């Protein structure tokens, strides 16, 4: 699960990780109020930042007002203008795709002087099966490009499984960032506290780009990206509350409410499959058969009438879908039962209406596959049956060609 920058910084503050002062606003009036408060406390420079779950905001532009997603302001009036330009508009960045994301919240922060821009990240290193801290003096750049072009500019510290981050590891990183004196001490505390936050919250990623050093030797997280292990959210109800459903595709949200694992893609052949690996393989097969997968949909172990009905509704909501391939490998689930489920779902008036022009190919394999095929072949519905995966592939090719 991803969260917004302002939420990540709230977590940072709870752990004593230094961030510039800031507050979130969902209206221009609120933004102005925050800026006035900051001004009364001595601030004379502000930054207004669009809160969306995507990077590249500074270089992104909104569709209507052509505003940058990160705006530097020298007065409360400029904050007002920035806020009204951003709120309600749609921000398009490198990471959002052409459709962009609507800006519903902005983060108003105090502007700080920057002496150096650095990079700090924490994530799970899958190959080494432990958490890794990554730091670089090349802050403000795309870290993947830095890793590609100048890997020597990235330092890494791996945390031993079952242990905390050791002080010497934090020192190593702070030295590698070229820090000394007061800034060094502050950076070590910053790194130790940040790792605590990562570990305590079951985060899957923290990325601070840039981490900044100010002329008066303060170390701050200027930006913050944080996401969490979905499997661990059960033990973090406070973090679960930070979920912003407006950031999730509406049909993906609907699917998750029915315990279906659905990801929308932009192809023309919908698919419904039991099991994630087989679902991915089915998508690949659609492509090899001349179509493009319209979605990933894993209906899990119990492909019954209800799951099939919900699956149909979600797939058919996408107007690009020209055909649907259902691929079920029956193990514990018997194929004749799945066939009955499919036939019953297709008779549902709401679904029947929509599938009139959308051919459905049902491939059933495994326990009672022949019985399942027979049920489908003997029905008078517009459903094509297949047993072998290669036959299903040919049927897909026939209908999309």
């Amino acid at each position, binding site marked *: 699960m991803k969260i917004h920058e302002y939420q990540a910084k709230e977590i940072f503050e709870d752990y004593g990780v230094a961030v510039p002062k800031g507050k979130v606003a969902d209206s221009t009036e609120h933004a102005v109020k925050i800026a006035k408060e900051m001004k009364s406390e001595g601030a004379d420079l502000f930054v207004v930042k669009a809160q969306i779950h995507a990077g590249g905001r500074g270089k992104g532009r909104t569709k209507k007002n052509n505003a940058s997603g990160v705006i530097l302001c020298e007065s409360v009036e400029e904050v007002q203008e920035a806020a009204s330009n951003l709120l309600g508009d749609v921000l398009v960045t490198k990471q959002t795709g052409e459709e962009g994301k609507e800006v519903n919240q902005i983060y108003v922060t105090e502007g700080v002087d920057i002496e150096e821009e650095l990079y700090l990240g924490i994530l*799970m290193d*899958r*190959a080494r*099966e*432990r*958490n890794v801290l990554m730091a670089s003096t090349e802050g403000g750049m795309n870290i*993947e490009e830095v890793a590609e072009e100048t890997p020597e500019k990235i330092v890494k510290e791996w945390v031993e*499984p*079952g242990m905390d981050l050791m002080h010497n590891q934090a020192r190593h990183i702070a030295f590698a960032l070229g820090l000394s004196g007061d800034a060094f001490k502050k950076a070590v505390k910053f790194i130790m506290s940040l790792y605590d936050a990562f*570990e305590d919250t*079951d985060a*899957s990623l923290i990325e601070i780009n840039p981490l900044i050093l100010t002329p008066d030797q303060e170390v701050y997280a200027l930006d913050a990206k944080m996401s969490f*292990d*979905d*499997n*661990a959210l*059960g*033990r973090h109800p406070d973090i679960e509350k930070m979920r912003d459903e407006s950031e999730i595709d509406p049909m993906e949200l609907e699917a998750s409410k029915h315990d279906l*694992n659905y*990801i929308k*893609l932009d192809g023309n052949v919908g698919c419904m*499959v*039991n*099991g*994630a*690996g*087989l*679902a*991915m*393989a*089915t*998508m*690949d*097969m*659609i*492509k*090899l058969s001349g179509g*493009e*997968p319209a979605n*990933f949909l*894993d209906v899990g172990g119990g492909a019954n009438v209800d799951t099939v009905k919900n699956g149909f509704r979600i797939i058919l909501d996408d107007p690009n879908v020209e055909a649907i391939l259902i691929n079920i*490998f*029956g*193990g*514990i689930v018997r194929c004749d039962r799945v066939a009955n489920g499919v036939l019953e779902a297709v008779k549902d008036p709401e679904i029947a209406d929509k599938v009139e022009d959308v051919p459905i190919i049902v491939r059933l*394999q*495994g*326990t009672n596959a022949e019985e399942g095929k027979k049920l489908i072949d003997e029905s008078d519905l517009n459903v094509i049956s297949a047993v*072998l*995966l*290669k036959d*299903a*592939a040919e049927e897909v090719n026939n209908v999309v060609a």
Partner: protein
Amino acid sequence: MSVLVDKNSRVVVQGMTGSEGSFHAEQMINYGTNVVAGVTPGKGDQKHLDRPVFNTVADAVEQEEADTSIIFVPPAFAADAITESAFAGIEVIICISEGIPVQDMVKAKQVVRSHGATLIGPNCPGVITPGEAKVGIMPGNIFESGSIGLISRSGTLTYEAVDQITKEGLGQSTAIGIGGDPIIGTNHTDAVKLFDEDPDTEAIVLIGEIGGTAEEEAAEYIQNNVDKPVAAFIAGSTAPPGRRMGHAGAIISGGTGTAEAKKKALRNAGVAVAESPAEIGKTLKSIL
């Protein structure tokens, strides 16, 4: 004649009195697996499926000489169950549970390693040696005894592959579902090693998917060490980057973990890679 499990394996089912554990324990017993006990803390004086239920895995080891465990406990408690098996001296721990927090697995795997146990999974269908022992949730009837070793990160895609292999007239020595999580006990390379050393496995089928670099590492190992024929399929060529495709580990991130990179590494190592999931059986047959 096989790896990891066989007719002599003495299996304890952790979570046997729960609905999942109970259902699959019965299926395993019907298959002929030597299930010797169950474990459910607090139900230590009961019998279930005509097997004794113990409070602890240690009791099952001591009283029934269990050497293999299979875990069906909810994900929040599964890492604890894995370590309990390791502490009790279980040799092969098979964890079916899906949804274990990854930081729990980082620590549990360390415990498994330091106690010298072998962990399969989590988030896997288990291990089957056809005709001898099914320690998992797969449909036993699609498997045939034979000489093909099968390794896969997924469940139903494994069944699909097995079905095609069996239809080519080839049986399996053992099929290992290694699991779809980012941290798993036995990875592709470990499983390849097991089959390479097994005299009764003549060829290996490796089913991978997007995410991580485990398939690339296995390719390197195969290139340097394995003379047996290897066929492979990698799922997820059409998966978009940055999205988790059902399995917690199936994600292309920062340009790593793509299907193309994995296929290329495997091909370079001399592995026969099936482009279509419909051609896994045929591809295997072509290299034998």
